[in-house]
């Protein structure tokens, strides 16, 4: 494909008198962080390929307030939340998909009591649904026999109990899933949650992301799959620290799906 893919905004659709079936909430990392932008782009390519009527808020999107809240600044969180809810409600948004489990958790669990109630799903859940419905299919076993390990993010896993959707996607792509010992409910944090992403860690004997990445590398997998832009960054740094760049890749499930479909 050589022509540029157009990503519609809700404002645009509204001007045409239309509404998206689902709003893609991009999140700050997905919008600004270079590494995370790749995940965002992979995901819109998939949405486009499958033909889902989606849109983004574009410049009308704003931080959900999650890191402020987790850093203890409830005031700033609620300011952000109320502003976002006002925007979402003005566009009569009913369904939201997001590639960030932190945005996912906040909008799904913490917005309703502030007046913002939507159906919120994580992009791995949408991808799994599309696979189940036969709308997302893969040609000749893209990852057949390839060892892939999967890192449960805290805010998709323990926080919201989503463990199977991401694994089912790997299964559908014929990958050989090799689990780390600490997986699912016992998954180990990458070290970024609770606004840790935005500050230096307290002093200790080791960085959390290094501990986690070592565990992932020890599985023998050459691809570490993830579902969160922050985990992807943290684990990517862990791979660099282990001098395994070029040998081990950290990829979001959306990126793996896009790769498998050659998008």
């Amino acid at each position, binding site marked *: 494909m050589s022509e540029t893919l157009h990503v519609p905004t809700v404002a645009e659709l509204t001007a045409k008198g239309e509404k998206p079936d689902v709003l893609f909430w991009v999140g700050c990392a997905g919008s600004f962080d270079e590494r995370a932008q790749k995940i965002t782009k992979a995901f819109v390519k998939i949405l486009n390929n499958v033909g889902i009527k989606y849109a983004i808020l574009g410049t009308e999107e704003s931080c959900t307030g999650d890191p402020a809240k987790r850093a203890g600044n409830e005031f700033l969180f609620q300011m952000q939340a109320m502003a976002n809810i006002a925007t979402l409600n003005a566009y009569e948004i009913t369904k939201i998909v997001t590639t960030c489990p932190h945005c996912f958790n906040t909008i799904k669990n913490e917005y309703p009591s502030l007046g913002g109630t939507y159906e919120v799903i994580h992009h791995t859940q949408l991808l799994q649904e599309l696979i189940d419905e036969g709308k997302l299919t893969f040609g000749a076993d893209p990852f057949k026999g390839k060892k892939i390990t999967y890192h449960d993010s805290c805010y998709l896993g323990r926080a919201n109990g989503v463990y199977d959707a991401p694994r089912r996607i790997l299964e559908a792509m014929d990958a050989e899933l090799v689990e780390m010992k600490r997986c699912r409910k016992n998954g180990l944090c990458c070290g970024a949650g609770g606004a840790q992403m935005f*500050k230096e860690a307290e002093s200790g004997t080791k960085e959390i992301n290094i501990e986690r990445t070592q565990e992932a590398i020890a599985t023998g997998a050459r691809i570490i799959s993830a579902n969160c832009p922050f985990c992807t960054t943290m684990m990517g740094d862990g791979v660099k620290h282990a001098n395994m760049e070029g040998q081990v890749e950290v990829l979001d499930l959306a990126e793996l799906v896009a790769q498998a479909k050659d998008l």
Partner: protein
Amino acid sequence: MQYIEQILFVAILAVAIYFFTQKVKQIRRNILIGKDQIINDNKPARWMMMAKVALGQSKMVVRPVAGFFHILIYLGFVLINIEVLEILMDGIFGTHRVLSFMGPVYDAAIGFFEILAVLVLVSCLVFLGRRFVVHIPRFHSPEMKGWSTKDATYILVIEIVLMGALLKMNAVDQVLQSKGADHYVAAGSFPVSQYLVGFFQNYDISTLVVLERVFWWFHILGILFFLNYVPYSKHLHIFLAFPNTWYGRLQPAGQFANMPEITNEVNLMLDPSKADPNMPPPDKFGVSDVTDLSWKNLLDAYSCTECGRCTSSCPANITGKKLSPRKIMMDTRDRADELGKAKDVNGADYHDGKSLHDYISQEELLACTTCNACVEACPININPLEIIFGMRQFQTLEKSNMPGEWAMMNSNIENNQAPWQFSPSDRANWTHDIK
């Protein structure tokens, strides 16, 4: 003589129950120092959670070795205590094995209790071994030094001694039964203590009666001592695990409560029509002391048995940071105890001016990634994260005490609508070049 023994028994029982009740009342008061929180939604789910997690020990067995031996001790504790009912009746009425009229059922029960007693004894030895021979790291964290380790050891030793007394009591009883001693009806089956009979075979009946009485008294006094020791120890979990799981969280672990007093403030600024102008401004935001926690947080603290599964699964702790979720729970309990005692002396409205932040440092609070691993690991659904988070809110909102990077992040969110310093107008730039 017999009446004297009965009167003595009733008197001791009354004293033991009195002191136990007084202590329970004190703990209840300490728990209710916390803020009121109504927890009574979705009762069927709550009963299920209690049945599964507390009664069914579903989270204990996640770690199979400890889980297995813990279930043995738990079953032993619950079932052997049925026999205590008989001991109480015998003590009050001066009877001996009053329930033996049940015949084969009784015999089977006594035999079963003996087997359980041995299993409990072995499990306690295994647990001592895990603490002092195998050196499992979570039993040797800094917060375990001193009383905590002693407390754990005392409990295990008391259990071993009690089970020993039970078996010896049965052994002597058998000899007395076989010698046709007055008052000692032939009852019970003794699959274990039959092997101890040899030690007592050669004594005459009067000596044996004294020995039997000694073991019997030792057993019941031990149990009454245990009853009164438990509320002073981490072992309260044997009672509190049940209410603690019943009142546990049902909402998703990732859902952090929104502070209503802040919602009102924000509404006053953004949309005054939604705000309640009569809501008094809060005297403080976040948690500075145990009085700012909910009673459920304090019930959590009193339920904690310091097993350390939370700490051993905490990413911060694993990587050598100061934070230990178990210490958070222990500090919370110690502070509630301290404030409770101060109130005992100075009246219910008294506050000693100290705070939970005197126990828990900012360094510990800042290390938390809010990952919920500690919450997941707790075998009885204790939630250290709510306490850590509430205290972090206090530091941020009341003291503006946070790392410079967080202050920067907050101002970025305020000014640029993102935690980094990017221009909001560039937010959709990624859309420009997708091929």
